[in-house]
């Protein structure tokens, strides 16, 4: 009889092996899915994972890796802090939207002023917007003990309504001939989050993502606050004994995650997206949850996982246009990744053991 046995120590090998196996299992299960949809699985997998990097048109797709990866990594870093402490912010998508709205709002308010301080002010406004949106579940949790998972998730839908309202109303382009959506910030130089080096995809959001990775690494490994975050996640009672004030940690983790998600939204709206529009958000806030777990809640892991998920976004778009795969199939594919990861994760703390069936 096959039996799960708890390991005396978490296996270091499996910690690194799990994400790799999860990716392979997702590819296998994804192939079956694509085959059922009537597509050649090998071609589909190659289109998603290979073509963006090495095909004839890779020069166009490669910069996209940074463009798609940066918001994922930025958001996931913020989420990972909370996840490590057992604080579950599921509403990064909403914080991302609000950050974009406040960031773009500041930019649009200054239009057409040409000044150096417009963009920095937008950055601050974006971070503050996301932070404030995350403070709603945080304060409710600290004050009334509400569940932050539900509140933060529900606020995503509120944020989406707000986005629709803004792009149809307050922020609508007065010169847009009635089309929904704001002015395009790409055409407003003081507010444009332009590529820092042309043709690379490198913009300020990518820089912020790298800074976030390094800061989070230092915080978690070298700073007392990061230690308290890890301690709270692993042994909440020991954390209180050590002197951690749980409420402060909730405020810090949700606040940081919100601010980073808000920054991601702001960099996106001022750069690659260009304008506030009804369909501005494409699910980075939710995909970032997968990124955070796939990266083992470890900053460097998140960097790699962000790149991988960015790849599936780009590859998914190619597969949609070239193979006619439905968009939902790609989302399913990303979801499977998280599913397999969590399932295989059991092996980190448990091992399989053959056991003789004992005769009664």
């Amino acid at each position: 009889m096959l039996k799960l046995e708890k390991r005396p120590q978490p296996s270091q090998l499996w910690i690194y092996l799990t994400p790799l196996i999860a990716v392979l299992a997702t590819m296998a299960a994804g192939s079956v899915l694509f085959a059922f949809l009537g597509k050649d699985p090998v071609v589909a997998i190659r289109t998603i994972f290979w073509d963006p990097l090495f095909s004839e048109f890779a020069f166009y797709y490669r910069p996209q890796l940074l463009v798609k990866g940066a918001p994922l990594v930025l958001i996931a870093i913020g989420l990972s802090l909370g996840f490590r402490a057992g604080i579950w912010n599921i509403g990064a998508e909403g914080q991302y939207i609000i950050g974009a709205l406040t960031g773009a709002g500041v930019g649009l308010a200054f239009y057409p002023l040409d000044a150096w301080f417009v963009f920095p002010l937008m950055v601050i406004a974006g971070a503050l917007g996301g932070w404030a949106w995350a403070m709603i579940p945080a304060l409710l949790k600290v004050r009334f003990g509400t569940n932050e998972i539900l509140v933060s998730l529900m606020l995503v839908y509120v944020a989406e309504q707000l986005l629709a309202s803004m792009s149809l109303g307050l922020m609508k382009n007065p010169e847009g001939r009635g089309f929904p959506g704001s002015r395009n910030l790409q055409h407003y130089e003081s507010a444009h989050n332009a590529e820092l080096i042309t043709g690379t995809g490198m913009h300020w959001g990518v820089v912020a993502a790298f800074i976030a990775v390094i800061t989070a690494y230092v915080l978690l490994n070298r700073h007392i606050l990061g230690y308290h975050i890890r301690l709270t996640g692993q042994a909440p009672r020991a954390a209180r004994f050590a002197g951690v004030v749980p409420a402060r940690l909730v405020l810090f983790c949700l606040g940081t995650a919100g601010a980073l998600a808000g920054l991601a939204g702001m960099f996106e709206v001022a750069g690659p997206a260009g304008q506030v529009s009804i369909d501005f958000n494409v699910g980075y806030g939710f995909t970032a949850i997968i990124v955070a777990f796939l990266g083992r809640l470890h900053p460097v892991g998140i960097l790699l996982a962000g790149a991988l998920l960015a790849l599936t976004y780009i590859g998914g778009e190619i597969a949609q246009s070239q193979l006619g795969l439905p968009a939902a199939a790609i989302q399913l594919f990303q979801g499977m990744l998280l599913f397999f990861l969590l399932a295989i994760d059991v092996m980190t703390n448990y091992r399989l053991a053959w056991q003789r069936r004992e005769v009664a």
Partner: protein
Amino acid sequence: MTGTLLSIDGLTKAYPGVIANDDVSFDIREGEVHALLGENGAGKSTLVKMIYGLVKPDEGHMRLNGSPYAPAAPHAARASGVAMVFQHFSLFEALDVAENIALGMESPPPMRDLAKRIREVSELYGLPLDPTRTVGELSAGERQRVEIIRCLLQEPRLLIMDEPTSVLTPQEVEILFETLRKLRDEGVAILYISHKLEEIRALCDHATILRLGKKVATCTPSETTARELAEMMVGSTLQSPESAPHAAGDVVLELDRLSVASPSQFGTSLRDLSLELRMGEVLGIGGVAGNGQDELLAALSGEIRSAKGALRLKGRDIGPLGPIARRRMGLLSAPEERLGHAAAPDMSLTENAMLTGAQREGLVRHGLLQWGKARSFAEAIIERFDVRTPGAGTVARALSGGNLQKFVIGREVMQRPEVLIVNQPTWGVDASAAAAIRQALLDLASQGAAVLVISQDLDELMEISDRFGALNEGRLSEIRPARGLSVEEVGLMMGGAHGMEVAHV
């Protein structure tokens, strides 16, 4: 009534890395109280788990009333007439007594009949118990009665009791013993597990002594001295902790009518605790489990804040201060629960050294952690307190209970506390480690620190305390010099028989 009831022959059980039982053989006769004596880790639990069908032996066999006996599961053991009262109760606090008993039965009778049976049996054996009371309101002694009556309703021929007196006051112990003697006289065999020697001498007819999984001796306890029993159990002569003579100094910690609400629903709130703790003394706080010990530790460590003026350290009001500020002022503590409270199970010993050592050992500078220093601090603890582990990188949960306890106590002692609060410092720790921990506490006191020991082990408290008080339902008894206190006086301070009726036998 002298026939052999259960015959155990060559039972062996090995776990990875340790042989829990090695070729153990002995007989239990009808109508006797048979003691199973041994230190923590001697293999007592594994042995009774095999008898009760929870663990299957690797080798050896048992015979019950002459026929082969190999229970596959506890219900098979119960069907054969073997019942067991565990040290840790398995009761639902929100349900009443009768409901709890019904849950433990294979085919419970209708509730009304069951309530009647519970009344009959409890009266018959001198353990009065109201079947309609909610278990959450019962004292530990009454909860134990629920477990015992659950067993007695099955009319067992062999009753196994695992350290039953660890939750009782001396007066409650006497009531329990009356019940057990009555059962014995009716022909029931009782397997009594304990490491408390005086109890065994008072109650048991025969004793089997285990050491490191092997049976090392059998004896008749009433004809053997406690010291002889102890030496058979430990296998060497025991070193009693020695206290250097010292005079109690100034008051450092002062509790003035400290009242604290328990954070958990069935916890015990502290009511009007007043005491003065002096430099250089060891103050022992006894009491049956669940009478406010956890809450007292939390209120002193700073995990629970208290009202202004109720708690003063060196004259300064520390009620509103958290654990970190109190540590800076020299008040350190070690909670009872090692894994998950005193230490984080999945963190290394280095990381666990950081847990309380961050402030006083200078392991943090400008918020940045000094891992190198933390590692040397952990290594220093491991060396001085003889913690058996491959190294400071080992995770806490990989250590045995005794070794982790030495680490946890050592971590606080090494930080040169001015006041040290410990809860159950030697719980589940083998005798030599326990002696080392007690010695460390005494040494600390003789160097001028004030030590407050909360413990349920009365022998331990009497051995190391200068003064003694007891917690009972969240209140503190009068505090008296420990020297010269009789067992009866201590029992009364712990709440006597808690108003439980004495057996009408």
